[in-house]
């Protein structure tokens, strides 16, 4: 949300992977305090990114399905996109 550029270039799957890696790091106790906050922050950023992705996807799916249920021959709201 704050640093959209690198986040946008991440896939959801990549984000989840990175998130899992961070969680593994965090849970491994090897992480020193210096990086802890930064890692947690990254994890939060990834989570937020994924949430956004999910929300976007949810909207998109709803739109698509709504288009599909629209009367045939009458283009749905996104037909022109």
């Amino acid at each position, binding site marked *: 949300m704050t640093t959209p550029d690198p986040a946008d270039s991440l896939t959801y799957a990549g984000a989840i992977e990175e998130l899992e890696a961070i969680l593994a790091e965090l849970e491994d*106790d090897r*992480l020193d305090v210096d990086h802890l906050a930064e890692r947690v922050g990254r994890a939060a950023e990834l989570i937020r990114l994924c949430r956004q992705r999910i929300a976007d996807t949810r909207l998109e799916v709803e739109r698509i399905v709504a288009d599909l249920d629209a009367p045939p021959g009458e283009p749905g709201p996104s037909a022109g996109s």
Partner: protein
Amino acid sequence: MAAAEQSTLFPTEHTFGVGELTASIQRAVARAFPAEVWVRGEINGLRAAGANGHLYFSLCERNSRRGPTSTLNVALFRQDRQRVEHELRQWPDFRLADGLEVRIRGRVQYAYGRVSVVMSAVDPVHTLGRLAAARDRVLRSLAADGLLGANGALPLPLVPLHVGLVTSAGSAACEDVLGELAASGAGFRVALADARVQGTEAEASLLRALAAMARLRPDVVLLVRGGGSRTDLSTFDGGRLARAIAAMPVPVLTGIGHEIDTSVADEVAHTSCKTPTACAAELVERVLAALRRAETAWASVADRSAAAVAGADSHLRRRADLVAGRASGALGGASGRLEGQAGRLSARARSGVTATAAHLEGAGRRLDPGRLHGRLTEAERTLVVAGARSQRAAARAAAAAEAALELAGARVAAADPARALARGWSLTRTADGRLVRRAGDVAPGDTLVTTFGEGAARSTVTATEPAHPTPGARP
């Protein structure tokens, strides 16, 4: 007769004149037979009444077949005859005839040189009874020998065109038969055997004629005789004639007498007809019946063949109609089936499209946003968990670092000299600040600065001592 003549030759003493004697005989006869008498005998020599209307015959008595042995002249004068005939009208079966035994009543008289009977009445019952008895005897004898049905068992040919005719040639019966046959128009061939049919010679004559017919073997033999009284026809009740008929190899048809007569010959014959004409008519009818049968068959053949042709024609017409009808039906059937298939095609094509559309919409419903949202919500939940995990891990890491730090702090504290001073240890330095570690490090007189846990003290060395190792003195 000869004996009677001789007897008149014996008296010689008294000789009568003829007239006298005749008169005397007449008186004697009259005295001997004062009243009429009944006498019976066989009629012989019966002649038809002459112009005067008188009838003469003789009565005889036979002992054998060779001839009469006694005879008696009988006269039936006109008036008596008329009366007798009148009385006999109620006895149609009875008629005076040669060979017939009769019982008559009359006055015995001698006239014209003869004894004769002037007949005044006849007893038909006597004659008929005898005839009937004789006839019954013959019939019983024939029945006993199984001959009654013998001739009748022979098959009468379908077309008896070859006819043996046994009768008195030229008689009315003969002419009747020939006339009937000729009138029929059918091609009869008649073999005519002339025979006497009446009188004492009749039986022998008939037997000869039948014998000739048996050799000739025509299709049928007609034995006919014209009408007469039972007494006229008594020959046909005879046993020999009956047996000859029974033995004939061809059917014998009889036509004897008139209608109410039934002679033994009739009984034994194949068929008995009432009259000769009826006999011939029977044959004619049989032949014509055969011709009719053939004609009927032919007419039926002609009709039937025409009908068969017509039938074949109408059958064929029906077939033709059937061909048209069935062909039309077959086409109708084919058309019906075809339209059924067309209907199936329409229905199936439409329902197929509908079903496919339904299937597609089913697939479309599987694209369920609710479910997808659920899946996305699950993913979100995973993210929340990840957040929590990171929080927990971070807290744990901080705590661990803190714990390690505490441990390090404890170790540092343990090493802190301030702690030893607090326990009672102290530090001694030289005045210049050098730490005194051993006695040799100082000389008496040196100023020492001693630091305690709290505060310090200044002192001077007075003496030194060599080192004695003591435990716990090291720090």
